[in-house]
């Protein structure tokens, strides 16, 4: 297993370098003078020169890339032009929200998707199967943001006055905010990597609540996240349901399942212990691929529900031509995506010994 892990980690290296290279090149490809694009049409030549010097844009492109790599190694992603703050600080502030949404959506899509798929496969060619598959087909064809808006309309307006009413926007109710953990612990002068980690922890509601014990804010934020998570999770849920159905149907036709039944195992055990273990491999692949869908969906849904995550910040940054922020965010998301796919690969090895020993 450790050899397998080592090989996979080694394979990750060129992809990571490629990701960094692409994010570096993307910004260099912007047509026109970087000074004019960043400072605007009316920038004076003197201001321009100072700007180019400050960001080292006058140097050779290889020198620039070397410095870029070095800075990333030091955890420096540049400074936002729009917010005049280090991009790392913005990432620490915005990333947790997006991750919370993605994780919750992943939980929803996996649990509901597998459940629907199993039911569909077991009740093959019945009304339940047909209805589930129609829902799945419609589910994969819906725009995420449209579903989000419809959910907001139904749960915030139509169901007003019932116990099912849910908030349609924001991360918390008015007057609620997360306490910074550094402040909570009475720490002063936290800088660098330590500050980044503490900020990340402070802005993750669940972790914050563990330390501060303020669970009221946890439930409040959870309530705000239900609608966005359902919206983000629906397309992946539909895809997982379809995959589970076909994968399970294929496995159920195999001889060893007949053997398991013939030796008198009860049906739930046949499904959960024997069939699902083999059916899970394609399902896990799909979950890995869908993480990209979830992250993109989170970015879109944040704008619908006015959530202060990476998505809203990125759209704002693009409209303001704030390239360091776009660059940093795209890279962070790509790294998360690559790491999730690594996890998926590792879970294959867990599920299928043949891959481990290959």
């Amino acid at each position, binding site marked *: 297993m450790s050899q397998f892990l080592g090989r996979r980690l080694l394979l990750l290296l*060129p*992809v990571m370098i*490629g*990701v960094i*290279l*692409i*994010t570096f090149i*993307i*910004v260099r*490809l*912007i*047509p026109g003078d970087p000074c004019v694009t960043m400072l605007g049409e009316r920038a004076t030549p003197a201001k321009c020169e100072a700007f180019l010097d400050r960001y080292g844009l006058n140097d050779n492109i290889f020198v620039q890339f070397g410095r870029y790599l070095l800075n990333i190694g030091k955890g420096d992603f540049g400074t936002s032009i729009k917010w005049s703050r280090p991009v790392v600080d913005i990432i620490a502030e915005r990333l947790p929200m997006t991750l919370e949404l993605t994780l919750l959506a992943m939980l929803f899509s996996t649990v509901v998707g597998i459940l629907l798929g199993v039911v569909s496969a077991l009740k093959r060619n019945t009304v339940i199967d047909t209805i589930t598959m129609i829902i799945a*087909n*419609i589910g*994969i*064809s*819906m*725009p*995420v*943001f*449209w579903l989000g*808006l*419809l959910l*907001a*309309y139904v749960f*915030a*307006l139509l169901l007003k006055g019932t116990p099912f009413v849910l908030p349609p926007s924001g991360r918390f109710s008015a007057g609620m905010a997360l306490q910074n953990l550094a402040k909570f612990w009475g720490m002063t002068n936290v800088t660098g990597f330590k500050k980044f980690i503490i900020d990340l922890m402070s802005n993750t509601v669940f972790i914050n609540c563990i330390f501060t014990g303020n669970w009221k804010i946890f439930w409040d934020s959870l309530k705000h996240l239900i609608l966005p998570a359902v919206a983000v999770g629906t397309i992946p849920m539909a895809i997982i349901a379809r995959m589970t159905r076909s994968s399970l149907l294929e496995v159920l036709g195999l001889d060893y399942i007949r053997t398991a039944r013939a030796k008198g195992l009860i049906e739930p055990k046949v499904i959960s212990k024997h069939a699902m273990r083999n059916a899970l491999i394609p399902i896990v692949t799909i979950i890995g691929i869908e*993480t*990209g*869908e979830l*992250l*993109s969906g989170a*970015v*879109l849904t944040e*704008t*619908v529900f006015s959530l202060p995550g990476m998505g809203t910040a*990125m*759209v704002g*940054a*693009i*409209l303001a*031509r704030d*390239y360091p922020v*776009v660059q940093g965010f*795209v890279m962070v*998301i*790509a790294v998360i*995506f*690559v790491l999730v796919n690594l996890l998926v690969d590792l879970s294959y090895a867990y599920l299928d010994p043949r891959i481990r020993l290959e």
Partner: protein
Amino acid sequence: MADTLAEVTEEVKQKSRTPSQEVIRHLFKHSSGRAGIIILSILILIAIFAPWIAPYDPIAILRDVDRRDPPCIHILGCPADQPEHIFGIDGNSRDLYSRIIYGSRLSLQVGIITMGFAILIGTIIGAVAGFAGGAIDNILMRLMDVLMAFPSLLLAIAIVSVLGIGLINAMLAIGIVSIPRFARLVRSTVLSVKELEYVQASRALGGSPMHILFQRILPNAITPLIVQGTLGIATAILDAAALSFLGLGAEKPRPEWGLMMGEEKNSIFSAPHLVIFPGLAIMLTVLGFNLLGDGLRDSMDPRLTRSGK
């Protein structure tokens, strides 16, 4: 005797069908394939005849209406003295129904053009990589790996941020992020048939590399490309709508469905029809391509169609 004669004629008829006729026959037998064809046929007709179907100009600002008026349909009890607007009026006093009718043109164009672009470039990259092998293959495929390391919509957003906002740039961005899928597909097909005997025979007979590649190898990739391309159109339409929704795609006042929703997302509580109808249009279009793609996959796979008989 008559029975066997009928059987024989049936068999002869079956044999005389070309493969593409066979696929079409299976497609019409396939329930989701049929549903996809029906939805898309209607949509294409709507797109072609948009000027005759739409009662108003999609970008004309109407004078005698209020902004964000709800739908007014005469047979459903809307007073006869009011002009009929079956989907209501949008935030700029335009007829929503006409805008949605015209929007079908944009969405179909976006889907088909972006996928055409991605298939063309992807095929070239995949064919060169698979056919040349060695270092060229390695470099091209690692590049594809890196492109696939980004969630596709996010990479498209990043590309748009570089190219600038606009529908053409959004299409280009979506096309670029779709290339790796097709490149991989074509490469794997090329690799799987490159060493087969009929290809070697063609080489022995003095076929030029171009002839071998285009006449002998690439026809094998057509089937999977058609299936993946059809499903890809669905994704491209969704992604383009998403970019326009964020304000990074189609420019105002184009009747683009995603843009229409983006413009009115804040009036979801006061004028939900402005969000519901464009979204419904996107959903039906995407559903059509997804169903057709499913149907094509099942009817083009000889193993499935044979066993399905």
